[in-house]
Every structure is written in structure tokens, then in C-alpha cells.
């Protein structure tokens, strides 16, 4: 078939979610992916006797079958929930921050987490209970706005969600200042900042509060067979619903007709496929800078794209260790190792190569003891670069430089945890911004889409979603979308754009 109702560009989380939504509605759909497997960052790879998770540290919004979180509900609607086996994580994290001398473990669960804050401040529990009550109102307000399809009744908002409105414009740092919590409590609540990668002066409080409330109160999980399991579950669902996925099939052009409406795509090998609707699961920088002919790109699309800021560029060290986690002395799954919890300072020092100011490190065996052979363990350490630091690296220096940064990160982790890892490294792989650029084509190797900026945060993007699209028949979903980065957000964004595409088709049909 050379014509589909919808073509999805990219089989990343957003693209896979979008394709399932389209197919569930009975439309035909083709997914074109330039790599040979689905998932984008949601994948895994094998080195020797180890299988490494490529990107996921923990997945929030899953909950349990009895008390499902929002993403589990979404997966149920799409028909993939039964295909995935989840492992619930026990603790939230182990924070080690040098400047403040923090070294503690925080549990999941509202009550347990609130109580654990008493070790940081005598009134810790009280502050956390108050904070979570505020978060609950934020979540309820967001749910209400969603139910009203973005047109909430102002009177209801004023009456039921006044705090949501009052903190709506503020950054994380502004809001915490207004809340007046002690430094130890704020520092602890700020720990997850690197999951969104914007500093506290820019990051939207609503967005951050909503995310950490989900983590702390509902916990987090990981798929049993790495995130490749998620991607293959989606691929299987797409086939079940009669959809097609073509691999090694890079889209190089989005075609438009005389009216400027999308009419198809062109693959790298020259083959053209017709479709009135395209959902691009890639960056608007690529869509407006490469995939569309420049005449098809309105001025305001360029303005919007130039207005946005590329977010954190990824760097990860994957280690297969010939000793068990227990033998190494690592008890926890999730470590945050920081110079300081002042994320404005951290953000600044992560602009350059040479600092290892912040790392999020996972010892996978402490969540899934069977993830590697007995007597071994898997560790992966991730950091971000908050500027385009890797752009001017010479190819002859590249391999040495990435090993130097990786060696620093390993040493830093060993020092923070008092362990010896380097003597037992059996397998190593290092992903730099170049690696992320290679596999997923993202500008500068960003893994976080567009950064949450003061005026480009979650709520503004959601409210302006229709205003931010320009080409009839084309929608852009995934990590660059209105829900911003992260696994749950990118699936949701793709599904949302597919829902909007179905409405577009309905309007056209009328």
C-alpha cells in the first residue's frame, strides 16, 4: 500500500504511542523509523554477558494493577499494559551531596517519605504533608483542566484550586521561597531536578511539583526486560492492530500540496508514500529545519523554534561489573551524587566538559537481582551537559575524551560511596551527546527535548498547543511536545497528538 491515513515519523515513545492511538481508532498507519529497532532512547544493548538499559532510570505513574497510575491507565487504553512486566522500586533514592554533607536514603510513599524528612528537620513531616496537600490540589486542577479540554470554568478554578492559580507563574525557587520551608527540606525536595534538567530559577513549579508528588507518593517501577520491552510491546500492538513499521527507513522529506497541506513523505531511498496526516516524533528543529521545504515553513514556526532552548545533552557510562552489588557494598538502586544541591550552580558547572557536578547512578541489580549473571552487577551513571560543550571535539580526540569524562564519573561515584568499582569492570560502554545524536538524530545530542524555561513550561505549552502548530496535517509529538521530556510524558504527548490528528480528520471529513 502506498497510501496511509497517517504516517508517523520515528518509532520513539511518542511515535509508538501515537501509532497505537491512530490504529485503535480504525485508521491505517505506517511508522517509519531510521534505526533498525523501535524505541528511540527506550532500548537496551548487549555487551558480553550483560544487557544494559539505554536510558530509563525509573518510570513514574505506573502504580499497581489495583491502584493504577496515569501511565498504566494510558497503556491499558492502548492495549499494551498486559504485555509489560513491571518491577516496583523499594526506595526513592540515595542522595549524596558533598557541599552540605548529605548522605541519606529516602523511601517511596507519602507517609514514609514525610516521616523520613524528620531526620533532616524536626518538623520535616509537617512540611512534607503541607507540600503534598498543595501538590494534590495541583494534580486535581490539572485533571480538571484536562477534563474540560483546556477550557476550565474560571469560577470553579478560583473556588476549588486557588493555590494552583496562585503558584501558577512561579519557578521552583520562587515557589519554595514563598513556602518558606527550611533549607534541608527544600534541598531534599530538589533532588529530582536532574530528571527535568532545568535549574530551579527556570523550571516551572507546577510541573516539578506534579512530577515529584507522583514519584514520592505513588512510587516508581522499571520494566523487567529493560525499556526494550516497552518498545517491543508497542510494536507487537501495532502489528496486532494491522499497522506497519518500517525500519532502516529514514524520512527525509514531509511533502505538502499546493494548499500547504501535508500530502505524504519521502524516504531516504527516494520512495514516496502518500498520507494527509503526519505525526512527527522528532524535534521541531528537524521538522522545520530539514524535513519541510523552506517555503512550507511559516515565519512564526521559525520564531517559535528559535525561541526555544535545547535541553540537556546526555552522557552515560554503562558498566558490567564482575562482582555482585553486595560484594561492592552497594545497597541502593538509585543514587544521586551531587557537588551541591544548589541546582543553579550545578546547572552552570554542567555547561563545560571537565566537571562532574551531578550524576544519577543506577545499580540495576538492587531492583532486579536477576538482571545479570550471579556474582556480577550492572551500574550506569548519567550526567547532562547544559550547553553545546561537545560540538567542537575533534574526531581524533573524541574516544580519549569520552573515556576521561567516564573515568572521572566512576572515580567520583567510588569516592562518594566508598566502593572500588574500576578493578572489576568487565564491560564498558560510553554514550556521549554524539551517541544520542547518532541514534536519534537530536540536535546537539539532547536527550531532554526543549528545556523547561520560565515562559516555556508545561502549562503555557499545554494552553498554547493549537497556537504552536502551523502546517495543516502535521503534528509534532514526543519528548519535544507540550508535556515535555520523560518516558510517561513522551508517550502521553504522542497519544495526545494522535487524538488531535483524529479530530483534524473528523473535521476534514465533515
Amino acid at each position, binding site marked *: 500500500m502506498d497510501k496511509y491515513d497517517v504516517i508517523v515519523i520515528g518509532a520513539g515513545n511518542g511515535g509508538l504511542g501515537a501509532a497505537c492511538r491512530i490504529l485503535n481508532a480504525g485508521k491505517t498507519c505506517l511508522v517509519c523509523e531510521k534505526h533498525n529497532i523501535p524505541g528511540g532512547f527506550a532500548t537496551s544493548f548487549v555487551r558480553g554477558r550483560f544487557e544494559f538499559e539505554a536510558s530509563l532510570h525509573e518510570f513514574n505513574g505506573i502504580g499497581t494493577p489495583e491502584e493504577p497510575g496515569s501511565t498504566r491507565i494510558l497503556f491499558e487504553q492502548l492495549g499494551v499494559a498486559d504485555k509489560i512486566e513491571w518491577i516496583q522500586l523499594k526506595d526513592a533514592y540515595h542522595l549524596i551531596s558533598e557541599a552540605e554533607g548529605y548522605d541519606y536514603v529516602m523511601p517511596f510513599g507519602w507517609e514514609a517519605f514525610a516521616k523520613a524528612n524528620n531526620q533532616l528537620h524536626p518538623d520535616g513531616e509537617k512540611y512534607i504533608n503541607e507540600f503534598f496537600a*498543595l501538590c494534590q490540589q495541583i494534580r486535581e486542577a490539572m485533571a480538571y483542566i484536562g477534563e474540560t479540554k483546556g477550557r476550565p470554568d474560571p469560577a470553579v478554578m478560583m473556588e476549588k484550586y486557588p493555590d494552583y492559580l496562585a503558584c501558577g507563574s512561579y519557578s521552583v525557587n520562587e515557589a519554595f521561597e514563598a513556602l518558606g520551608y527550611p533549607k534541608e527540606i527544600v534541598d531534599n525536595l530538589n533532588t529530582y531536578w536532574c530528571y527535568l534538567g532545568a535549574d530551579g530559577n527556570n523550571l516551572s513549579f507546577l510541573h516539578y511539583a506534579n512530577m515529584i508528588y507522583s514519584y514520592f507518593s505513588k512510587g516508581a517501577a522499571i520494566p523487567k526486560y529493560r525499556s526494550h520491552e516497552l518498545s517491543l510491546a508497542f510494536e507487537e500492538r501495532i502489528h496486532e492492530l494491522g499497522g506497519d513499521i518500517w525500519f532502516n*527507513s529514514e524520512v527525509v522529506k514531509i511533502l505538502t500540496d499546493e494548499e500547504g497541506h501535508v500530502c505524504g513523505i519521502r524516504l531516504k531511498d527516494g520512495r514516496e508514500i502518500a498520507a494527509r496526516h503526519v505525526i512527527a516524533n522528532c524535534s521541531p528543529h528537524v521538522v522545520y529545519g530539514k524535513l519541510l521545504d523552506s517555503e512550507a515553513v511559516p515565519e*512564526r514556526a521559525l520564531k517559535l523554534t528559535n525561541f526555544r532552548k535545547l535541553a540537556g545533552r546526555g552522557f552515560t557510562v554503562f558498566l558490567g561489573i564482575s562482582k555482585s552489588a553486595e560484594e561492592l557494598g552497594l545497597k541502593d538502586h538509585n543514587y544521586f551524587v551531587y557537588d551541591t544541591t544548589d541546582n543553579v550552580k550545578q546547572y552552570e558547572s554542567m555547561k563545560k566538559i571537565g566537571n562532574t557536578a551531578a550524576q544519577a547512578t543506577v545499580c540495576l541489580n538492587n531492583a532486579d537481582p536477576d538482571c545479570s549473571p550471579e556474582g556480577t552487577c550492572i551500574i550506569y551513571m548519567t550526567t547532562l551537559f547544559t550547553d553545546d560543550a561537545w560540538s567542537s571535539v575533534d574526531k581524533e580526540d573524541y574516544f580519549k575524551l569520552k573515556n576521561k569524562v567516564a573515568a572521572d564519573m566512576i572515580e567520583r561515584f567510588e569516592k562518594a560511596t566508598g566502593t572500588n568499582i574500576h578493578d572489576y569492570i568487565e564491560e564498558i560502554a560510553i554514550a556521549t551527546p554524539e551517541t544520542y545524536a*547518532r541514534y536519534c538524530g537530536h540536535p546537539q545530542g539532547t536527550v531532554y527535548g526543549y528545556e523547561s524555561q520560565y515562559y516555556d513550561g508545561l502549562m503555557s505549552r499545554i494552553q498554547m498547543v493549537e497556537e504552536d502548530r502551523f502546517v495543516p496535517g502535521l503534528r509534532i509529538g514526543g519528548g519535544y511536545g507540550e508535556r515535555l521530556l520523560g518516558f510517561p510524558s513522551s508517550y502521553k504527548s504522542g497519544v495526545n497528538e494522535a487524538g488531535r490528528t483524529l479530530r483534524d480528520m473528523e473535521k476534514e471529513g465533515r
Partner: protein
Amino acid sequence: MAFKKSNIPGEDIRLATEMTAKRRKLIDETPAAPLVYEYGVNRLAKDLHPGFVKAVIAEKTPCSADCWRIRLEPAAGEAFPYFRAGQFVTLSCRAGESFLSRPYSVISSPREALEGKLEIMVQRKGIFSTFLIDEAAAGTELIAGEPSGDFYFDSIRDRKHIVAIAGGSGVTPFLSMMKAIREGSEDFRLTLIYGARTRDHIPFDPEKFRGEGVEVIVVLSEEEAEGYRHGFITAGLLKEYIDCDTSVFMCGPDAMYRFVRGELESLGFDETKIRQERNSVGDREVSEIKAFRLIVHIRDAVYELEATNNETLITALERAGIPAVVRCRNGVCGFCHSRVVNGEYFIAKENDFRRSADKKFNYIHPCSTYPESDMEIDIPIMNP
């Protein structure tokens, strides 16, 4: 509680309601400058990983009783990427009715590749090496996959002294490493222990490679000669070269791996410090050769062919002339990752490097998979 930041009544909410208007204004004020087409990071990624490069045979030289060196040049407008000494390239071309691909380790150093020189060693073994040795000539065009594999020195993982053990054309990755050490693109000590039957079976000139940081020991099994060791690569011999700061790299036939691993074990050498390059998965022995019907989907095209239970699926595809993606041919790299629609198959445990979810959802690497019934599979398109 009531969230309050500003002391001006209504100010907090007013600021929130103005967010979109401010965003709109900021977008209005941003220039409509053309978007950057390619970033430095993305350019380097492409330089290092061009995917496929069209190459031409420039020179073919015999270098031992059964080995030839073949020097490739990039076709017009193409370039070889920088790589890690020890990696391989997969060469493909159409030969008669078949479309063949085979991996070959690179002799050249990373810097030589940048100068447009990519030399490989071919040992007369199978259908493609015979084609390269007997039929291909200067000017023959090939498709070269980008240098791949993780058989290279890693400064974090490996000890500073590598004892490299090789036989046959297995010396190839170490020739590249020795050149890299000399040119300064790699920084480690390498002791090469090469096993050959006689001096006529040595496909390189040891004298040319000895130098600072590089020692070469040749062990002849069927000849005694001055300057050469006699016998096999035994524990006694290995003991002379292995110190407390050694990792062992091996490249050669499987029989050599088995023997040397046994010798290393008797020395109490840490087996997690041994790396070996893997050999291609070949035919398997079966009690009865059976032919099956294989249906292959590539995008929306469907092919039907015959596959036998003693040959890998990739061999069946090649024989039928279907340009199938393949890179390592030993089950490891996952480049040929394919979906099983239905059918039974066999993968030897030692060649099964699939991801755990691939097993759950029934995906295979055709290069290491044998059919056990009629099969239907969906493979990615070869798209250089």
C-alpha cells in the same frame, strides 16, 4: 494552606493568567532566522558513523601461503571514518546470483583510514574470500559498513599491558593496534604472541612492527628457526609475558581459543580479563538435512525461498540474492534484528546475544539462527 508570594492582593493569580500572553510576546520578538541545518555534535556523529561507505579495491597482495592483503579506497565523494584499532568492516557486493556480506578486521591504523586507506586481510576460507581472492580485482566496487565491534583497547576496562594472542588472519586487529600505538592514536603496551605452522604461514613481517611499546613473539609449530619460538602457545610460554597488569586479547580459530583458555586457567589468570574476537557462525551439523519454506517480508515486499536446517537464515537469504542487512555474522551486534511472524528455529546458546525482550517477543538475529520448520520473518531493509 494558602499559597501566597506577593503581598499585593490578586498579584499571584494575575501573573499566572499572563503567562501565555508573555510567551506569545517573546515568540513575536524572536527573529525568524533560518534554523541550523547541522550541529557540530551531529556532524561528528555522522563522520564517525557514516553507516555505509562505497569503496573500491585499490590493490591486492598475497602475504602468506593462504592470506591476501586487500587495500580499499573510498569511492569518489566518499570517505572512511576514524575508528578504534581492532574493529572490523563488513564488505558486501553482488557475486553472481548471490548478495554476499562478510566482516573483515582492519589492518590499517585509524589515521590511515582518514588518509583514505583501509586495508584488510583475507584468508582463503569460504565463498566470499574466494571471490575476493580469485575474482575481485583492482577497481571492483564494494560496500563497506562502518568500522564496528568492541574488540579494541579500552583505557578504563583493560590493563595497560595487552598480551595479544593470534593465529591465521586473526593477527589483523593487532596489526592495526600496533600501528596505532606507533602513530600515537593508542596508548598501551602490546605483546603479540602469534602462532603459525611455518614461516611461510606468517602473513606479516614481525620486524616491521617491533618497536617502543610493541613486542612480537612468533611461535612455529612445524618448524624450528632462529628468532622464533617452537611449539605451541602454552602456559609456560604465556607465563613469561603475563604480568599483574595484563589483559589478554585473542583472535584466531576456535580451537586456539579453547587451548589457550585452558592454559590461562592453569595459570590462574582472571578470565574476566580475557577478550576474544568472535568468529562467524557457520553451518551446523545435522543428522538429516531438511529444506523449509521461508517467507520474508521487507517493508511491503514479500519473498519466498528455500532454507535448510544446516544453514543460518542469513545464508539462505544471501543465496537467494536478497540484500539482507547483516554486520557481525556471529549473533552479537543485532544489526540484522528481525521479527519472527511464525515458525520454529534454533540458536546455539553460545551465539545467542539477543536482548531479553527479544526472546520474550520472538525476535531473532538471522545471522545466528537456523530454521527448524517453515518460517515467516520480517527483516529490515538494506538501505545504504
